[in-house]
């Protein structure tokens, strides 16, 4: 009698643990781990930056190479959509594509050009938060005498987590540009905004050539 009870218990436990395995596997396949997807991405970018071979190529080509890696993990269309807010919905397909292209170029010059100063600092993955189809991957750039928290705000596209915002020390890039764009839109309209972005890109391009 006692043995019977024991067997039932064992059977119950075994089946229960199997269920556990099945459930955890199905959960894992449903949502891939965002940190695990961003780790190789960050490594790829830092590898390009410290590679002695890329030191010799032109700034523009290097920027292009890094941008290509960024495209694997960044959804520039989603970024453009968010940064324009209400205005995005009023644009036709062609204008949306044009704006996406322009905004991507702005980011390429403004930010991807800046990370060239990177010289082998450590990037730590500290934490992640998942909320449905969105997640935040938190990292820490550890430099001498200070460390800078950088978060990627990501969206699940199929089985890939794609970033649509970067938060540096608590300041969201998209939200910061959004407020600036909003002021320009109310003053000079959409055409004024497009012109100002073009001017900004030209200005940074000129500065980089001089520097």
């Amino acid at each position, binding site marked *: 009698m006692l043995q019977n009870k024991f067997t039932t218990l064992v059977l119950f436990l075994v089946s229960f643990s199997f269920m556990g395995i099945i459930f955890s596997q199905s959960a894992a396949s449903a949502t891939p781990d965002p940190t695990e997807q961003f780790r190789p991405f960050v490594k790829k970018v830092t590898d390009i930056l410290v590679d002695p071979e890329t030191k010799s190529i032109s700034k523009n080509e290097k920027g292009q190479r890094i941008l290509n890696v960024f495209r694997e993990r960044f959804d520039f269309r989603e970024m453009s959509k968010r940064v324009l807010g209400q205005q995005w919905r009023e644009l036709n397909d062609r204008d949306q594509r044009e704006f996406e292209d322009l905004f991507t170029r702005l980011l390429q010059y403004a930010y991807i050009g800046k990370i060239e100063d990177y010289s082998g600092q450590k990037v730590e993955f500290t934490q992640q938060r998942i909320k449905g189809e969105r997640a935040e991957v938190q990292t820490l750039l550890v430099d001498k005498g200070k460390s800078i928290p950088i978060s990627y705000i990501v969206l699940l596209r199929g089985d890939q987590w794609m970033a649509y915002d970067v938060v540096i020390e608590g300041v969201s890039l998209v939200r910061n540009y959004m407020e600036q*764009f909003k002021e320009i839109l109310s003053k000079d309209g959409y055409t004024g905004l497009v012109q100002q972005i073009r001017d900004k890109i030209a200005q940074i391009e000129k500065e980089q050539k001089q520097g």
Partner: protein
Amino acid sequence: MALAVLGFFDGARADDFLDDTSYDDQSVAVKTPDPIEPFNRAMFTFNDKVYVWVLDPVATGYSKVLPADIRGCIGNFFYNLGEPVRSANFLLQGRFGESGLTLSRFTINSIGGVFGLADAAADEFKIPRKRATFGQTLSVWGAGDGFYLVVPLLGPSTLRDFSGKMVEAVATSAYYPWNDDVETSVSVFSGQVVNDTSLHLGVYEDVKSMSFDPYVAFRNAYFQSRSKGGDNVLVPNPNFNVNR
């Protein structure tokens, strides 16, 4: 007060990046009014000049004399001195756990970190830095922001936060080791500013050069950074003095 506390945490939640409403047009607009924008813009320009012509050259020279590691230690030392005030603010806000942790950070770092030169509490004990200001406390108690204010030499603030900062300055000076005279206090404060700046050289210029309207960009960054409540001195500089 309970309502105010609830309101405070509600506000914090609305700024969650994973929440789509945080990207709404409405929430991006500055919730705190900026009625004295012309004055603020003038002060912004003044602070910008102070940074470009005075603070940046001084900090650059200083960074060439002292290695980054040592400057990091000096930064930690000053941060550690502010911990008791942060702990007291947490207490006043009813956040007892954080108050205790901040006080433990002070104890650990003052002893184990040798007068706070190292941040042993974060590195070894995994107790991260947490920000609490008297301006925050006033907000929990129900005081509104008033309006956005760019303070000469101190940078972005609001009427409430600036008042809070003044109260904190008095509170910290009560136990600072150099509270004998004004001249010493001012030179110690200047030293602290130069040291902080030396650790973030070039960042201010970078952010400025990427902005379409630097005034709006830094105002937005101030409010964003403050709502995240982290320890977020992006650029310790007159125009971007988020949290000192």
